[in-house]
């Protein structure tokens, strides 16, 4: 990184693990997560390689988060088809707005996970239990340490919405993980 300038390769190397984990936590599927990250990288190179490097991070995460939302939409459509084809009677789940309400109904309690001795899974499930916009706000603000403005740019929403989603996410996670951390 001579002179402080990043090449696109260095940039990808600096974000790819976290990007993969974000997609993996959101989808609960490593294969889907790898596809999402690869697609985000390809689109980043195709559309934004010529942009100034200080914009790469919010742009990359915007693509990534859009791909994750696309994945949720596809899941919603699939679920609907299953309902129409009579494979599932879970009408309530099918009618939910995935962007606002999707939650992992099979999420275990902290005690259950602790019994399994797998804190990591417990954290993944706690995050996955959040609506997707709250997941995004929490991951970008808390993990990527983006500013509110950068997060808003990455999520494609207002700064006020970012603050609201983040605050709700932290509150929900603390409730869910009560006893693990303060």
């Amino acid at each position, binding site marked *: 990184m001579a002179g402080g300038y990043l090449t696109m390769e260095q940039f*990808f190397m600096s974000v790819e693990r976290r990007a993969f984990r974000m997609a993996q936590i959101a989808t609960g599927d490593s294969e889907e997560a790898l596809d999402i990250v690869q697609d985000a990288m390809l689109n980043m*190179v195709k559309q934004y390689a010529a942009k100034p490097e200080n914009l790469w991070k919010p742009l990359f995460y915007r693509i990534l988060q859009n791909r994750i939302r696309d994945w949720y939409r596809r899941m919603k459509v699939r679920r609907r088809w299953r309902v129409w084809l009579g494979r599932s009677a879970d009408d309530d789940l099918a009618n939910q707005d995935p962007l606002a309400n999707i939650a992992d109904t099979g999420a275990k309690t902290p005690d259950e996970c602790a019994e399994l001795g797998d804190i990591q899974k417990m*954290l993944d499930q706690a995050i996955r239990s959040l609506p997707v916009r709250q997941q995004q706000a929490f991951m970008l603000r*808390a*993990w990527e340490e983006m500013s509110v403005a950068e997060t808003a740019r990455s999520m494609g929403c207002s700064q006020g919405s970012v603050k609201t989603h983040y605050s709700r996410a932290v509150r929900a996670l603390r409730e869910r993980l009560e006893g693990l951390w*303060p």
Partner: protein
Amino acid sequence: MKAKETEDKFVQEFKKALDQSARDLDAGTLARLTRARQAALAKQKATVVPWWQWMKYPAAGLATALLIFTFVNITRPPQDYSGPVATLEDMDIIAAADHLELYADLDFYSWLAEKQADAG
């Protein structure tokens, strides 16, 4: 204040755990991430630059040169002209063809006038 500190501590603990999970990714996943990265970068190298992209720099240079040339010509003061300049009196001569003939035969008419004077 205490609530804020507690929340910050919670977030820090969460962040540490997430960092740890990213560090602990298995070799198979890391290899596939590397392949994904290399595929994306190969696409970048293979991307053909459209003609208007590589034309824009020479075009900008040409436009700048034209702009400077035009600007200099418009703002330059008129230069002094040291050659003969037609005055209003000369315009009659220039405009009338018969007068031109008169001036062309000026020697003849001078001689004729002298002869008439001698004869008179």
